[in-house]
């Protein structure tokens, strides 16, 4: 169970997207995991063949628990070994003797996950056997896999289309979504369909819930969990991170004018919103001031090599997630806009990927659409800075002694005083301002 965000301690396996015998590559989506915040698609970190699945759908396990066994590099089972594991992980190759490697292969143990207790981190025979026994106890300690109590997508791979709320209500009531006729867009199952189906059925092994009770309880459970997850993380942030705050007003006359001209020539689907330019500038500024882009660890600040820009997305019905736009500084504003739309849509539909929720290097929160002019955010641990963008408003603005009306935005920075000082933060906001004066270069 990977940690899909700093605030995650356990996860519920919702669905396997692979089966024993399937070949998987690094980055393949292999499972869907439910956290307190959202259903998240888990990507495989290892190429190989799925040997065994250790966790049944519907089971909640702590972060770090083994979910499945993947066999790597066994030549007789790997039709295309050349493109698989060998070239991709030479640097991380654990120190190991051929004999131990053979044992690990035989027992289906991924050596990359084994902690070496021998000299120089060498993995010994007993390390492998320990790994085998923990894996076995995780699998063997559980009763024979009973039919999963939660709704499960059919094994054919065709996932039932449903809204997240419908999915949740169905799961909590033990209703199989595949049996529900969807009335939403493209036949998607909506929560009203689930409720209609529920009012006609009594889920096996449970007292018949009054439809009203299901309606009231399901969303509240999710919201409470979300509230707690956000609260825990933010409490940790305020407890551990000595925040300092900076604010500046940025003239967006050039940027808004440039966007307006551009959008006039574009079909709606390709139009940009000011947020795309602001995010691009925020990412470029983070690259210019690397002291703010990275994570705080036991050993101090570790700068990140790329800028993975976290974007705070508020969810309908409350709560928020801040998934990453990967390599945001290298995207054109148009690409960034397309990725942003995709990310927001998937965040709200509850289909984010693990890599997106776990690795932002700096986050931007934008409350402009909600009408506030300035937001001083709380840093997402282990990041060390958070950029706040307010509403774009028209204000009197003096340029070269002349007063005019310009669109302006209040940009703020909350930063970790352990990692940087105010002078560094000031350089960030100055860079953001400078970049936004030349929108055509973004």
């Amino acid at each position, binding site marked *: 169970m990977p940690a899909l965000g700093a605030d995650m301690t356990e996860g519920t396996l919702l669905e396997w997207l692979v089966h024993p015998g399937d070949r998987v590559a690094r980055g393949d989506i292999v499972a869907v995991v439910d956290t307190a915040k959202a259903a998240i698609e888990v990507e495989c970190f290892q190429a190989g063949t799925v040997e065994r699945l250790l966790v049944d759908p519907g089971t909640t396990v702590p972060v770090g628990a083994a979910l499945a066994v993947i066999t790597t590099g066994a030549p007789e089972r790997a039709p295309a070994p050349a493109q698989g594991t060998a070239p991709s992980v030479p640097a991380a190759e654990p120190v190991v003797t051929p004999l131990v490697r053979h044992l690990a292969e035989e027992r289906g143990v991924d050596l990359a996950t084994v902690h070496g207790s021998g000299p120089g981190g060498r993995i010994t025979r007993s390390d492998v056997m320990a790994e085998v026994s923990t894996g076995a106890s995780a699998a063997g300690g559980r009763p024979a896999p009973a039919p999963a109590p939660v709704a499960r997508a059919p094994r054919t791979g065709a996932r039932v289309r449903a809204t997240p*709320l419908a999915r949740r209500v169905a799961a909590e009531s033990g209703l199989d979504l595949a049996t529900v006729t969807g009335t939403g867009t493209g036949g998607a199952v*909506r*929560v009203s369909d689930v409720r209609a189906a529920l009012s006609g059925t009594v889920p096996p092994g449970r007292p018949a819930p009054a439809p009203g009770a299901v309606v009231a309880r399901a969303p509240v459970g999710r919201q409470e969990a979300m509230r707690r997850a956000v609260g825990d993380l933010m409490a940790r942030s305020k407890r551990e991170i000595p925040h300092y705050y900076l604010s500046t007003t940025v003239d967006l006359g050039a940027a808004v004018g440039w966007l307006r001209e551009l959008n006039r020539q574009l079909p*709606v689907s390709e139009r940009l919103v000011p947020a795309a330019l602001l995010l691009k500038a925020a990412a470029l500024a983070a690259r210019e001031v690397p002291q703010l882009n990275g994570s705080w660890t036991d050993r101090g600040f570790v700068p990140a090599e790329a800028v993975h820009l976290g974007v705070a997305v*508020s969810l*309908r019905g409350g709560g928020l997630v801040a998934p990453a736009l990967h390599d945001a500084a290298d995207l054109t504003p148009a690409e960034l806009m397309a990725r942003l*739309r995709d990310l*927001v849509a998937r965040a709200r539909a509850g289909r984010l990927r693990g890599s997106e929720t776990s690795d932002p290097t700096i986050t931007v929160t934008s409350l402009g659409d909600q009408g506030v002019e300035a937001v001083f955010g709380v840093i997402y641990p282990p990041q060390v800075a958070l950029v706040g963008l307010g509403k774009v408003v028209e204000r009197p603005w003096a340029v070269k002694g002349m007063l005019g009306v310009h669109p302006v935005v209040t940009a703020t920075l909350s930063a970790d005083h352990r990692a940087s000082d105010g002078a560094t933060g000031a350089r960030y906001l100055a860079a953001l301002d400078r970049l936004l004066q030349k929108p055509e270069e973004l």
Partner: protein
Amino acid sequence: MNRDQALALLQEVLTGIVPDADFGRIGPDTDLRDALELDSIDFLTLVERLSERAGCRIDEDDYPRLTTLAAGADLLAERA
């Protein structure tokens, strides 16, 4: 497209963006962006789907008219 059709289309497209939108609470002159918590990306999606479904062009200058059901329906009825 007459005005009733325009209003129905607007509500349908909004429901696609905000699945649990409750139009019982939204009057003809209520600001949709506030009532439905539409952000700028949702709003762009609204414009995109409306211009697709109604087959008409909607420019940025028209955006202010899409902020309420009444004005939005008028705009669509004029254009399509």
